[in-house]
């Protein structure tokens, strides 16, 4: 079985034009220490990215238990290969999402079963009103189902922007696209979601 180049599966190519920007100096310093296997630096990077990576994965695959295992594996893979990370290639967050994306693609390739979303875990904290929670669950289910109807590239943009909370620049680096292309895909994706959710008046 050949190794898939995951990002290409979504029809995305690397762009040499995107080379060149590093993080702010404090993050560079943190990453350098992490590359020297500094425990505190590695822990800080883990803490800063853990929730976002988990959200991205669970939003993509819709299975809480699998997402937990995969999130753990993303960070284990990251610490194994962090010494090869070069900030000139892409921001650290984008690099980390590539690892997560690889995990997701491998997972989806292995399992083609229909996805179910763990609604009980999808509600944010501080929701005490059962009626409101139930309504929110329905809304979430609708949104997640609508996202599945997008193109792969659009799904990726939405997952990275809304679940991963990456900036457009970081999404562009992660996907090997220009920022303009990402913005256009984002617009198209939200318009398509709007249609899918049955709300007339799309831009």
């Amino acid at each position: 079985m050949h190794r898939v180049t995951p990002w290409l599966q979504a029809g995305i190519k690397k762009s040499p034009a995107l080379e060149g920007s590093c993080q702010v100096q404090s993050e560079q310093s943190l990453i350098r220490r992490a590359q020297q296997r500094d425990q505190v630096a590695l822990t800080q990077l883990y803490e800063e990215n853990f929730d976002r990576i988990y959200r991205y994965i669970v939003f993509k695959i819709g299975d809480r238990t699998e997402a937990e295992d995969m999130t753990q594996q993303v960070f284990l893979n990251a610490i194994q290969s962090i010494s090869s990370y070069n900030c000139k290639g892409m921001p650290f967050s984008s690099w980390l999402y590539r690892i997560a994306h690889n995990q997701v693609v491998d997972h989806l390739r292995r399992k083609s079963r229909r996805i179910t979303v763990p609604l009980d875990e999808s509600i944010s904290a501080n929701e005490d009103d059962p009626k409101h929670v139930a309504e929110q669950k329905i809304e979430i289910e609708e949104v997640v189902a609508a996202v599945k109807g997008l193109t792969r590239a659009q799904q990726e943009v939405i997952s990275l922007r809304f679940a991963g909370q990456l900036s457009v620049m970081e999404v562009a680096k992660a996907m090997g696209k220009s920022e303009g292309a990402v913005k256009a895909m984002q617009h198209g994706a939200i318009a398509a979601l709007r249609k899918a959710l049955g709300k007339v008046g799309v831009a």
Partner: protein
Amino acid sequence: MKRMREFDDILNKCIDRVLKGESVEACLAAFPEHAAELEPLLRTAVDTRKAAAILPRQEFRQRTGYEFQAAIRNMKPNKSGFFRRQLRWVTAVSVVVVVLLAGSGTVAASANSMPDQSLYGVKLFTEEVRLVLTSSELEKAELYTKYTDTRVNEIIKMADKGDVEQVVKTTERMNNNLKAIAKLIQPVGEGDIAAEGVPEPLLVAPGTAVTPTPTPAQGNTTAKAPTATLKTAPVPATAPARAVTSNNSKLAVTAKADVTTKANAQARLNTTVSNQAVKNTQDLQETLKTAPDSVKQALEKAIEVAGKGYEEALKNTAQKKK
């Protein structure tokens, strides 16, 4: 085309603001000429943001954190110099404050958990975090001493329940703690208390398979337990037996701390370790009398390990004293 790109930019700016928690109305007010076009898209963006706000379970977060720390430890981190050590300390505080605040309820709930319970991983992780935050060797040794005491209590509880697997695993963790104590207080040169040979905190992930060393053949399960040959360290007249954590924080400030304070702290540690050695070995032997037959072999191993471990630690404290 140009107009479309401009609108993409405006939409993106508004999405950034919505993702940061700003209201749709505020975005529309900022771009009134595009409000009609923006509004439905931003409402959808808000719905999408809500759907994506998926929180990891606290237990999963804690467990993964512990396993991540274990993985880092296995990477054999580079040795660091004095200044880097200080920087690490400062950063560690901020990191761990976040960790502890995020899961303080779980951390508190885990304090009395046992090896066969789900929150036990959190308990071990919390211990690990405290060790990482402790820069002084002496304080680290005190923490390991305390955690060894905890492990012994856990072994007793697990033995009472007849849980052989957990007795074996917890014995391994206890053994790691005892080795760390011995290493931390081994003599490294006159007056030197903080420089060389600092072992990193030991981690044994919950659920990790432990391969026990072969236990000496037992004729029957009620055979005499291995007896530890423990040398009790001299106890200073003024040193309270178990007051090990109260006054030692000053020692972490500098490696050139007051020699008398260090000596007193060292003496207190010696006292604690020697008292604990006697008491814990006795407790384990008492447990052996009433433990289910199935667990006796593992318990005898625990007694043997405890005896050797404490003996090694006390030998080092005695050498250090000279």
